[in-house]
């Protein structure tokens, strides 16, 4: 359909006239977001971690939070969460060495989430303080469906990877095409819907519960 392509681009040229050089367009685009601090909520009285916890546990986002000192303490925290949520001690684990190598004695683990997986554990690659969101970058050891199929989504968040704003996360991932993972998902709480009478209901298609385990040190 290169006919369509040429016709559309030609119509645009007719409407817009000649374009300035690419460098000028880029400079103009950059100038529009020169001071991103003016365009987003500021929370100068809060550090990243306290803002993250406040937003993640807010009425709208509804995650629960527990804290551990080391990554090796995660299985205990998972066990405690599952027990209080009355979920059988069985989880799908993101197939990441850092997770699978931990001592999961007492919990049955597997790596591929089933269609109706009751609970899964993932490590968040990054997190956003502004909105209380966790960020997942897809990779061979980080499948996408792991974050969408379980009913209870347990997410390990490393405290030092909580960044202030969305833009900070984008800067870390990198700007260029080749820096991008196949999927970059910003997840804020659980799957919800307001499609019936605008009432907010949890657990639409994805997880109904999100539990965050904030880890002081991942190593």
């Amino acid at each position, binding site marked *: 359909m290169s006919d369509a392509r040429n016709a*559309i681009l030609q119509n645009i040229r007719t409407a817009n006239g000649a374009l300035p050089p690419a460098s000028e367009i880029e400079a103009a685009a950059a100038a529009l977001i020169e001071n991103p601090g003016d365009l987003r909520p500021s929370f100068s009285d809060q550090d990243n971690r306290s803002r993250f916890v406040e937003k993640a546990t807010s009425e709208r986002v509804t995650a629960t939070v527990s804290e551990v000192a080391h990554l090796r303490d995660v299985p205990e925290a998972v066990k405690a969460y599952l027990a209080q949520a009355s979920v059988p001690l069985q989880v799908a684990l993101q197939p990441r060495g850092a997770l699978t190598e931990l001592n999961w004695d007492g919990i049955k683990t597997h790596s591929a989430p089933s269609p*109706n997986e009751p609970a899964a554990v993932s490590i968040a690659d990054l997190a956003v303080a502004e909105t209380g969101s966790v960020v997942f970058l897809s990779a061979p050891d980080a499948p996408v469906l792991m974050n969408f199929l379980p009913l209870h989504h347990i997410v390990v968040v490393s405290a030092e990877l909580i960044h202030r704003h969305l833009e900070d996360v984008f800067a870390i991932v990198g700007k260029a095409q080749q820096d991008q993972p196949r999927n970059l*998902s910003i997840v804020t709480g659980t799957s919800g819907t307001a499609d019936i009478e605008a009432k907010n209901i949890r657990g639409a298609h994805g997880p109904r519960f999100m539990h965050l385990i904030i880890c002081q040190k991942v190593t």
Partner: protein
Amino acid sequence: MKQTSQHFTQNVKAALADPTLKIALNRTTGLLQRRRAQVIEEFAEYGAARAAAEKIKDHTLDNLGHYLEQFEANAAAAGATVHWARTPKEATDIVADICKAEGARTATRVKSMLGEEIGIPEALARAGVERIETDLAEHIIQLAEDPPSHIVMPAMHKTHEQVADLFREKHKVPSNSDEIAALVESARRELRPKFLDADVGISGANFLIADTGSIVTVTNEGNAELTVTPPKTHIVTVGIEKIVPSMEHCAVFLRLLSRAAIGAEITQYTTFYNGPKRTGDADGPENMHIVLVDNHRTEMLSDFLRPMLRCIRCGACMNHCPVYAAVGGHAYGAVYPGPMGSVLTPAMAGLKNSKDLPNACTLNGRCKEVCPVNIPLTDMLRSLRARQFDGKLVTPVTRSALVVWGWLVRRPGLYHLSTALAVLAMRIWSMNRGRIRRFPMAGGWTGSRDLPQPGRGTFMQQYGRRKQK
């Protein structure tokens, strides 16, 4: 969907006579207005963000060709196939051809208004592909065989009682309860296996990122990722105006979109997709196709409707429109209802087929006020009215009345004299009862309510008297 905008008046009569619709609209629009007001109040930088968003969109539209070509190159580098379509037919042919080439029997679909605009549901039916709508609201209207009535909440016209009846009839394992949570659970049960079995996943995109070639979806349900990850093929159909320069520019819109649409600081799931599955990935589609659709957008670019291309489809304008709140979305008889629809439908389907729409507006201006990209909706509706007059699309009576009016207002002396006489006549007619039951040529008004008795003299006369004091 079938366009019925030319029957707006009949549609409105039917809508006003529907008591359940009134209940459904009352339960929703007020709630959405309050939620939006609250998060905007908490966002001190809102004014600056809104002004920046407007400028970013204008800049992108000014350099649209540059950004589209940049997007195309980057999306291709990520492994996606980019297609271009001038018309809905070209776009849906591309989609149908891909489905055929893949031998697809089923397609899951994430709600996308562009998909409705170009007629994806009909195209899939023609191609013999079973369509599974995954957005809860789209699932409801698919089962009910209704068109969408709102761009963010397409099933806004349905009460939960109606949804309960529908699910009892159509779901394999329906719930006994009418509670909304139980209905949501029932839909989850019904749809989960279908997500995983589909051959093709079709989505729209809320944004295209020029410098990375990413497409972005924004949902609360997480159904976009569940729709496009398991099938072998992911098809994206998207309007060319959805493009923004970079992810940082996109951040400005993400903050505004969710606040304006549902009163949230961010939606639950925002995902940037870059091409198909990579070596070693455990899941993801093997092919990704992106269809860039024009459908009158380049015409709007060289027209007074150009600002309309800034629209991010948040739905705030309809949530705040008194006409929409009274008649709902179906009365507009088109994919896009409410104020933004009254501008878009004439642009896409022709003014002749939608001539009542620009007039279905009180010009109260709330749509523009709440629009996160400051689209002058009322100005454009006014211009469309003028275009109707110039194109002789108004009735002869209206036309001659407007001609007489136009002649009169250009003669201020005569105008003041005649309005003063009219006020006097109305005062005499009302015989000081404070109200007027019936008045010549005002049957449309007095049919359902009284006219108030005018004050002593016209506004200008009263103003003059005060100034003298």
